[in-house]
């Protein structure tokens, strides 16, 4: 099929597309891994909250002339560690969290107001602009991603245990608070990365959607981890390809794919148990 090959080749002749694919790879792997634990711990709202807080950090950074990515990272990290320290006290505090979120967005808006390239910057931060990522940013995203994954790998075992059985984990000597702070700091890094692709408002699509679908599709831990990463990467890359051919926004395609796959997963889960459990034993069985 010469035509298709030609167009695919054309796609990769553009530097911005190469950068976009590389950035999507770095970010999607982190999102798939972090998201899996976020869903398992029923803390998906934390991911959403951190991205909103990050918006103020990013716009503030633009205002004082540093890269919005670093403003985002500093702000999400601080908020993540803060949330981890508050821990149980944040439970059932939807109103307080909601107010902090809207204040952060409002503050971000104010910072943008002082900045001249208002509209472009706002859209980029809110909805992402993966096609505008340069090679230097790709490297930053890769290194940050490696740091986040290494940290997650270091705490994965107690994190899994504490997510499933907090009281038992505590009795066995796990510090729930330390673990929570460390995990939310990792989530903060993941969110900061994710914002580069889908923006502040759509972090859920790449960080929660694939992980939630994966946990519907498989009941085994390692299969779930692998599927979560594969779905995040597949949705991000396919979203890029579709955006290239349709000229519609990448973020739209990623959210559409994420939502569509989650829907399939939910509908699939209503099938009788027997048909679904054919996968049976996984890697650790």
């Amino acid at each position, binding site marked *: 099929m010469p035509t298709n090959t030609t167009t695919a080749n054309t796609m990769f002749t553009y530097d911005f597309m190469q950068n976009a694919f590389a950035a999507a790879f770095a970010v999607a792997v982190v999102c798939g891994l972090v998201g899996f634990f976020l869903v398992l711990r029923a803390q998906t709202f934390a991911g959403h909250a951190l991205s909103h807080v990050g918006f103020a950090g990013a716009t503030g950074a633009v205002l004082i002339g540093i890269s919005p990515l670093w403003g985002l990272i500093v702000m999400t990290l601080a908020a993540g560690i803060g949330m981890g320290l508050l821990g149980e006290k944040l439970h059932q505090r939807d109103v307080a969290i909601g107010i902090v979120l809207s204040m952060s967005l409002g503050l971000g808006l104010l910072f943008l107001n002082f900045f001249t390239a208002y509209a472009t910057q706002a859209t980029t931060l809110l909805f992402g602009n993966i096609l505008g990522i340069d090679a230097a940013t790709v490297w930053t995203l890769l290194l940050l991603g490696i740091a986040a994954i290494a940290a997650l*790998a270091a705490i994965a075992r107690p994190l899994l245990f504490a997510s499933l059985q907090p009281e038992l984990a505590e009795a066995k000597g796990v510090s729930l608070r330390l673990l929570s702070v460390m995990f939310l700091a990792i989530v903060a890094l993941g969110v900061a990365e994710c914002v580069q692709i889908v923006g502040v408002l759509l972090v859920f699509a790449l960080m929660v959607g694939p992980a939630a679908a994966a946990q519907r599709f498989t009941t085994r831990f390692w299969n779930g981890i692998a599927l979560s990463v594969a779905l995040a990467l597949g949705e991000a890359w396919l979203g890029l390809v579709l955006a290239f051919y349709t000229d519609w926004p990448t973020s739209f395609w990623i959210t559409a794919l994420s939502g569509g796959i989650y829907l399939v997963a939910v509908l699939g889960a209503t099938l009788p148990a027997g048909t679904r459990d054919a996968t049976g034993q996984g890697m650790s069985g």
Partner: protein
Amino acid sequence: MSAIEFAGVTLAFGTRTVLADIDLTIRDNEFVGVLGPNGSGKTTMMRAILGLLPPRRGAIRVLGKPVARGNPAIGYMPQMRSALDQLRLSGWDFVASGVNGHRWGLPLLGSAARREVAWALERVQATDLARRPLAETSGGERQRLLLAQALLGRPRLLLLDEPLISLDPHHQRSVVELTRALQQDLGITVLFSAHELNPLLGALDRVLYLGHRHAALGTVEEVVTGPVLSRLYGSEIDVVRLNGRIFVMSGGHDVERDAHQHDHGEHHVHV
């Protein structure tokens, strides 16, 4: 050697004293039912034995050593959390998360760890049901998985916090019988807290009744009497024995049954 020793132990949260000046000794290889009204300190006492709540006064010794958090010789089954209802993870992975779960690193299991999980599941007859996601297990099946998890590491002391909550009488009986069989086969000590005494009758060696900051430990005949329970409940209690069952009545109400209906489990108090 005794399994648990309390010497002048006072347990408190802030200004609220839950148990005051408790002296008791639980022997090795005993099945002890822990009973008492809501908030009488059943969970608190278990958390103290686990080293999660330092006593305000007095000393606790567990298996001959001063109490310490993370004691591998203690198996613990916390009250079931409703979050597990939604969990899509398999029972096998759920149980296995407890193998060396406190150590840093990736949750990879070697063959010894897998054998340990298989052994624990087999002990509670949960090998087959562990293939299903937790969300698709019944309350009784889930309790067996939790019990398997508590058995990991072959503990010599097992603390079971309200394993009968929200189970029907048939499943209550099977959980009690299974626990009794495990306790005798493995030669371990079990503390089994419950709202109601009757499901435990016939299985337990002694009963530990908590209430009004006091504790009474002894055989059912010694402890479950009007005078002893009146002191623990702080009100006039009649004990009625009928067809091998025991009813703890206050002014014509069955207080244990009432407690069970009002509140499914005392709430965990985190400090």
